[in-house]
């Protein structure tokens, strides 16, 4: 249809990477939960939604700069996640993955409905940073650019936390093998809670960044949950750098297929990619557990 010029391609690649960084940030949380707790957290997108609303209310009633209130949103959801009222121990004994799927599904529905009751389905948004920087023919949306910077920054911090700190190593150890970690003296129960807290904080960060970009409404989290799963399969379950790569890849695939084909098809292409990766390399592009 339309001939694709270099400028158009550049624009779309930029859009893809900017969007992808957010996917990566949010998916990282999901990867952590799955890797450590073997829990399939369907409620992940819902956590993001809560982060968005927190940012919105703080912005509307307290005038807080959404980027400055981001740590607060992360802290809030961290506390929520760490006090995760759900006792997974009985689940871990039998069919952990299936039960956790149903459980988090239920939690997700409850939270979404509570949000609808409390805040109605009215669209909200944080009108903070609009417009873009123009670099030649390529426009960098301001909100997405700042989001990109934060997302990468937080992801890097998360990697440093996982790689360099004792707690981070304990988390990775638990992910590798619960039994051996216990033998090494790691309090696995506490690690699970901590992981859930960290993952919730990452989802909240995503929500905070996204509140300036998209419309906020109670069901906004759904698509983020789906995309996070896509990213994890692409990058490899439990593979944290894989989440980053997968996120950026997903962003690019979506935008490029929208450009060369149509936007309707781009959704299908993303899922097609998922199927292809599962068939050819089920452990994900960077490898991980199945």
């Amino acid at each position, binding site marked *: 249809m339309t001939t694709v010029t270099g400028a158009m391609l550049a624009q*779309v690649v930029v859009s893809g990477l900017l*969007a992808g960084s957010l996917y990566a940030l949010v998916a990282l949380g999901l990867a952590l939960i799955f890797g450590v707790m073997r829990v399939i957290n369907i409620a992940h997108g819902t956590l993001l939604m809560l982060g968005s609303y927190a940012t919105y209310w703080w912005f509307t009633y307290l005038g807080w700069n959404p980027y400055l209130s981001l740590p607060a949103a992360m802290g809030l959801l961290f506390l929520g996640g760490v006090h995760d009222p759900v006792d997974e121990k009985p689940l871990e004994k039998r069919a952990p993955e299936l039960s956790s799927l149903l459980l988090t599904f239920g939690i997700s529905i409850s939270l979404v409905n509570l949000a609808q009751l409390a805040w109605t389905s009215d*669209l909200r948004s944080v009108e903070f940073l*609009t417009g*873009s920087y123009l670099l030649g023919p390529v426009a960098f949306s301001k909100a997405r650019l700042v989001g990109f910077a934060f997302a990468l920054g937080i992801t890097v911090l998360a990697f440093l936390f996982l790689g360099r700190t004792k707690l981070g190593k304990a988390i990775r150890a638990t992910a590798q093998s619960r039994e051996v970690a216990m033998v090494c003296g790691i309090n696995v129960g506490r690690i699970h809670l901590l992981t859930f807290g960290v993952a919730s904080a990452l989802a909240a960060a995503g929500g905070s960044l996204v509140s300036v970009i998209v*419309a906020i*409404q109670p069901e906004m989290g759904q698509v983020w949950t789906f995309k996070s799963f896509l990213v994890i399969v692409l990058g490899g379950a439990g593979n944290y750098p894989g989440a980053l790569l997968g996120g950026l890849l997903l962003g690019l695939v979506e935008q490029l297929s929208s450009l060369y084909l149509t*936007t309707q098809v781009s959704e299908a292409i993303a899922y097609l990619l998922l199927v292809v990766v599962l068939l050819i390399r089920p452990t994900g592009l960077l490898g991980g557990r199945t």
Partner: protein
Amino acid sequence: MRSTEGSRLRGLWALLLAAGLLLPLGGSALAQQPIKIGASLSLTGTYAKLGNNQHRGYQLCAKHVNEKGGVLGRKVEFVLYDDRSDPQTGVRLYERLITQDKVDLVMGPYSSAISEAVANVNERYKMPMVAPMAATTAIFKKGRKFIFMVQSPAEVYLEGLIDVAAKRGLKTAAFVYEDTLFPKATVVAPGGSVDLAKKKGIEVVFVEGYPKGNTDFSAILTKIRAANPDVFGAATYFDDAVAITRQMKELNVNPKLYGVTVGGDLPKFYELLGKNAEFVYGATQWESTLPYPGAKEFTEAHHKEFPGADFSYHTAGGYAGCQILVEAVKRAGSLDGEKIRAEILKMDFDSVYGGFKVEEDGFQVSHKMVMFQWQDGKKVIVWPENLAEGKPRFPTPPWGKRE
């Protein structure tokens, strides 16, 4: 524990109150059962904003009808469920309303997509359905007998935009649409935007649909920016209208005329976008300033009943749809489906919404569409000329050149 003395007194009061209420009714209490009107509405989900407006229209209509003594000597009462903006859910709910809740009458849901889905249900049970929020022609051309259109059809939603473009000598146009029944019909159906543009000698350089729920329009807008059309029309609902407008600014897309269809007329559109909503054109089936009978009173009554609530033609359409049904029942003198249908087909009725007259298949032929532009935070009707209150601010200045 409450004292039994107190609760006995309370019981006595309740009895007296009930007796007091029942006495004046006298006659057969059964005939005073309210007439139940069943409907599903999109109270949550993608269409929530507009579904809730339509809901308030229904509520206000019922209130006014009852204040005037009801219909056939009985009050009316809506039995409403939330279809969550999902056609499949709507179908289930109408089945339930008709077979389990045994409603006497039905009213239509929000959107063409859901109206189309549920049309088969009320057709099967021969319950006439005034479908106030269905503007897709195809719904009414399938040989159905029990569905009636209130809106002007989807195909003419962007007619104002295209007409203004043609009059200003513009040469190229681009259209996008949410890939669902109504927006798609607006653009690509026979007699839709693409056809209208071609008829006026405007070249259509880009047409593309996007999936429902899409939030990232960068690729589409990048392609549009490259195609550089004079006119850009988007057949949208609300969320996407906001997202597209915002992202146009981000990607610096600057057509000389830019209009949306649904959603652009909601006060919330301007609230969310602020100054970025200026110069945007929108299609509307109705504005409170139009000279229709009772329109002003309806608007005032609405603001009194629902202070601060969002208000749009969806509210008025809901209200008028219910008005039309009640009028038809009055004229038929019965709740019989066939009799009501016969009356609806005979009607040449002016509601608060404008003209209502349908053909044998239920297709609307009397109602008129108008186009407005956001100017200084107000919607100014700019087309058609005989109903216009102001002139279009043309051309739309590029994003970089606005204050």
